[in-house]
């Protein structure tokens, strides 16, 4: 068995031993450790937290939190620990270490992990004598320092922290927690200038000042002023000014402990000089690890390099991997400095003329971010205040992966790739239309086969014919594939494909000619006077919107959902959603729904996102009886129409509610239920800005705010597209909210293209324009819009009453007579 002696029981020494043990080093070595401090091994990084939490009597860091290895760990692993004993000399030729308690221990292999100590810059009055600091002056390095600081801080008013690096800022924040006013004195202009550039330092300074920490930069402390009995009373700065303080903490950097190595004849410069195996360059039997080490000219003061060093050392000393080599560490740190998030890696500033430098600064929010790129690789990044991108940046930094063309994407999610970039960069096999499974390659092939318009490609491939959210990207890909050869398809502006008119022109024609039915419109306005299946639904909706009760309803112009007032499902069954206005129901309703579900073997009962109950898998021929037995009005969960109003519990029950959102939601739904519109409309009313009914992402969303007022948002979405609605207006009463909601919806009904959801419509028209028209009545049409809406409301009838008298022969006749429905599994 060989003797392994480890000098230093700090984080590096103990970690090295742990690594050695996990490689079976316990079999090879009898281990002896010397620790200067009279404790087991503890986590020095947590001292800042101990200081900050020590102020709170219940917040004492427990020993098990702070200590990394309890005494038992040493016992169990057969380690002899000399705690509080200092090794003063190594006899390299006799292979022995001499300690200050007189003990002498022989070694075969020696590990020096002596760490570093606080650096005290020469300052008048700092020392009471050769070894003792002036009472009230502290370093911030050890558990002893921390405990002494906390004891001394009791009842004190003000502290100066000398040195505005990481540790100094932590000390200032910690002392604040003990009730002291903290002043940070920093010689450089920028705080944390080891890690941050000057501008980041300034942003950090503002953040700290907001936390109540006073910062003095660009000045040194030349003297410590003392009271007559020798305790700290203040500090004097370079310019002669003074500051009265009760205590001083010196955090002006650290110095590696290299004294032992020096007296033992090992090569030392700033640290103990080691090779790639962490061995002293003078002695193959002596290793060194941690902050005391100088490797390839670098001395590290952070914990991550130390872990890497300990791994290599253990691999080599145990023979687990004789080839193990340490090549230095790329520093990427993520810290919370005095409550401010900081992440820094690599360079803090560009160094070469052709280094790319991307910088974002928002001092008001305490945010500062930079990235530095050289030859297409990330070589440095600083994140202050917002470190949400640290993971991807660290990955790019460590693995040197290629970076996005738009460098700003390293710092921000700019939503989906912009269409132009997306179209060009997409791989051929990338799926563009996720509904119909159409790839970019198929779109391009379609263009090659002769399609010259976006509409033509969409028709031939069915891309963009599902939810429609990919239409923009499809158009861009087609455009790119045509390379400027794109033929503008005039049909794209048409309201319906078979009539060459946009919506306003078409409406004018319809009104002037008094066309009240789809067939009349086709006959008069369509090319060849022929009707067109793909245009019928849009036309029927428009005619009903325009004519209200005067509309001549032709059933064949309706989509199946509107013919049978239910939503067709994949197997040809239907879903039935009764009206539950505002999501408020009763025991009697629930009982009826339950009975109907049992009576008709409804395969699935599901609560909808719109706060209703969906009966799914109903056979078409059962629909009339289901409605009759439910004896509830239609919930209109099937048409391009006003769908539902989601509400929260508002002011009646919720202790935060500012307005009766529940009743307002019910009233709005009752008034506008079932209104046909270019696309479906989902609404919500929330009783306070906590927005539990999700009003911000609805076609129209209403939010109660303090003072009996209601905010009205329009154009929100949380489906295939996610968009926060725009604040159209804030109104003073619920009646105004009802009216304005109606007026906006009527304007939308008259002006939106077919299937154009409000989230596209609102940005297309523009919020300012919408406000001018709908709220301020610039064009004098508000009254007419309100009247038209009232006509539509008056024309409403509950379609489920058709269970009494079918509108057409075989209206509810099975369309797949030989298929046993439902085909879906019954849960």
């Amino acid at each position, binding site marked *: 068995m060989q003797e392994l002696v480890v000098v230093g029981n700090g984080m590096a020494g103990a970690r090295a031993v742990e690594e050695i043990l996990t490689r079976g080093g316990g079999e090879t070595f009898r281990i002896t450790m010397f620790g200067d401090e009279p404790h087991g091994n503890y986590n020095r990084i947590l001292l800042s937290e101990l200081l900050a939490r020590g102020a709170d009597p219940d917040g004492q860091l427990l020993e098990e939190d702070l200590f990394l290895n309890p005494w038992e760990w040493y016992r169990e692993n057969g380690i002899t620990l000399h705690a509080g004993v200092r090794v003063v000399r190594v006899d390299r030729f006799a292979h022995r270490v001499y300690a200050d308690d007189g003990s002498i221990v022989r070694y075969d292999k020696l590990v020096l992990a002596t760490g570093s100590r606080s650096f005290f810059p020469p300052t008048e009055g700092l020392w009471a004598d050769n070894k003792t600091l002036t009472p009230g002056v502290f370093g911030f390095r050890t558990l002893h320092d921390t405990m002494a600081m906390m004891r001394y801080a009791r009842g004190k008013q003000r502290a100066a922290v000398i040195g505005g690096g990481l540790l100094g800022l932590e000390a200032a924040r910690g002392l604040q927690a003990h009730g002291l006013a903290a002043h940070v004195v920093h010689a450089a202009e920028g705080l944390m200038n080891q890690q941050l550039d000057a501008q980041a330092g300034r942003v950090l300074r503002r953040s700290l000042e907001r936390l109540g920490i006073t910062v003095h930069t660009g000045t040194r402390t030349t003297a410590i002023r003392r009271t007559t009995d020798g305790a700290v009373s203040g500090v004097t700065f370079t310019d002669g000014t003074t500051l009265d303080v009760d205590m001083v903490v010196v955090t002006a950097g650290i110095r590696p402990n290299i004294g032992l190595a020096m007296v033992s004849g090992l090569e030392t410069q700033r640290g103990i000089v080691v090779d790639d195996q962490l061995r002293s360059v003078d002695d193959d039997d002596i290793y060194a690890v941690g902050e005391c080490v100088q490797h390839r000219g670098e001395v590290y003061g952070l914990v991550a390099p130390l872990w890497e060093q300990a791994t290599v050392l253990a691999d080599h000393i145990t023979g687990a991997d004789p080839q193990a080599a340490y090549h230095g560490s790329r520093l990427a740190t993520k810290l919370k400095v005095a409550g401010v998030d900081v992440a820094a890696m690599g360079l803090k500033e560009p160094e070469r003329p052709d280094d790319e430098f991307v910088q974002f600064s928002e001092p008001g929010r305490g945010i500062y971010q930079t990235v530095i790129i050289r030859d297409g690789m990330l070589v440095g990044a600083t994140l202050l205040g917002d470190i949400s991108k640290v993971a991807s940046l660290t990955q790019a930094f460590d693995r040197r992966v290629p970076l996005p063309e738009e460098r700003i994407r390293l710092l921000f999610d700019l939503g989906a790739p912009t269409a132009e970039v997306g179209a060009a960069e997409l791989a051929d096999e990338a799926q563009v239309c996720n509904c*119909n499974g159409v790839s970019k390659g198929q779109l391009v092939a379609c263009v090659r086969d002769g399609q010259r318009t976006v509409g033509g490609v969409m028709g031939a491939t069915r891309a963009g014919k599902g939810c429609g959210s990919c239409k923009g990207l499809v158009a861009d890909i087609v455009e790119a594939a045509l390379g400027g050869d794109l033929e503008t398809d005039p049909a794209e502006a048409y309201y319906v494909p078979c009539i060459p008119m946009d919506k306003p022109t078409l409406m004018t024609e319809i009104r002037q000619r008094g066309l009240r039915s789809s067939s009349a419109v086709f006959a008069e306005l369509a090319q060849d006077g022929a*009707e067109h299946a793909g245009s019928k639904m849009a036309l029927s909706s428009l005619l009903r919107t325009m004519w209200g009760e005067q509309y001549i309803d032709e059933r*064949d112009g309706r*989509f*199946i959902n509107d013919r049978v007032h239910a939503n067709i499902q994949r197997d040809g069954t239907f879903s039935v959603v009764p009206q539950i206005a505002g999501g408020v129901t009763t025991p009697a309703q629930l009982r009826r729904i339950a009975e109907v579900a049992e009576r008709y073997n409804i395969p699935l009962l599901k609560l909808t996102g719109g706060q209703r109950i969906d009966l799914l898998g109903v056979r078409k021929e059962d629909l009339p009886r289901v409605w009759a037995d439910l004896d509830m009005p239609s919930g209109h969960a099937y048409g391009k129409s006003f769908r539902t109003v989601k509400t929260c519990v508002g002011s009646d029950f919720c202790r935060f509610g500012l307005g009766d959102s529940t009743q307002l939601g019910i009233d709005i739904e009752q008034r506008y239920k079932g209104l046909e519109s270019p696309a479906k409309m989902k609404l919500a009313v929330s009783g306070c800005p906590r927005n539990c009914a999700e009003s911000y992402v609805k076609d129209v969303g209403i939010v109660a705010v303090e003072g009996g007022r209601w905010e009205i948002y329009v154009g929100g979405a949380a489906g295939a597209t996610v968009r926060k609605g725009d604040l159209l207006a804030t109104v003073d009463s619920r009646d105004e909210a009802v009216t304005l909601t109606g007026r906006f919806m009527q304007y939308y009904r008259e002006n939106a293209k077919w299937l154009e959801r409000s989230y596209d419509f609102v940005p297309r028209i523009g919020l300012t324009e919408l406000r001018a028209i709908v709220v301020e009545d610039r064009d004098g049409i508000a009254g007419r819009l309100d009247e038209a809406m009232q006509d539509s409301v008056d024309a409403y009838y509950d379609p489920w009453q058709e269970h009494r008298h079918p509108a*057409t*022969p*075989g209206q509810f006749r099975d369309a797949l007579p030989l*298929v046993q429905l439902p085909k879906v599994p019954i849960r």
Partner: protein
Amino acid sequence: MDQIPVGEGRAFAVGDEQVAVFRPRGGGLHALQAVCPHRGGPLADGLIDAAQVVCPLHNHAFRLSDGRCTTGERSVQAYQVAVEDGEVVLRLTR
């Protein structure tokens, strides 16, 4: 014939076959296989014009005259159909 409203379609079971019969507004009568070859949608529930029916599930379109799909799906069987004394008469050729 009066089981089929003008401008719509209705499905009938004829032996082992399901047949959708359509009655366009402009006149005439057409019969197609009732099941969409794409995902089994009920063509009788589709919107029609003089020339085509559009499946209500995923908007595949089929020509009423011969059942050919104009949107890239397989075609459907078309049947000869006529009206005799107000009765729809189908000829299923096998």
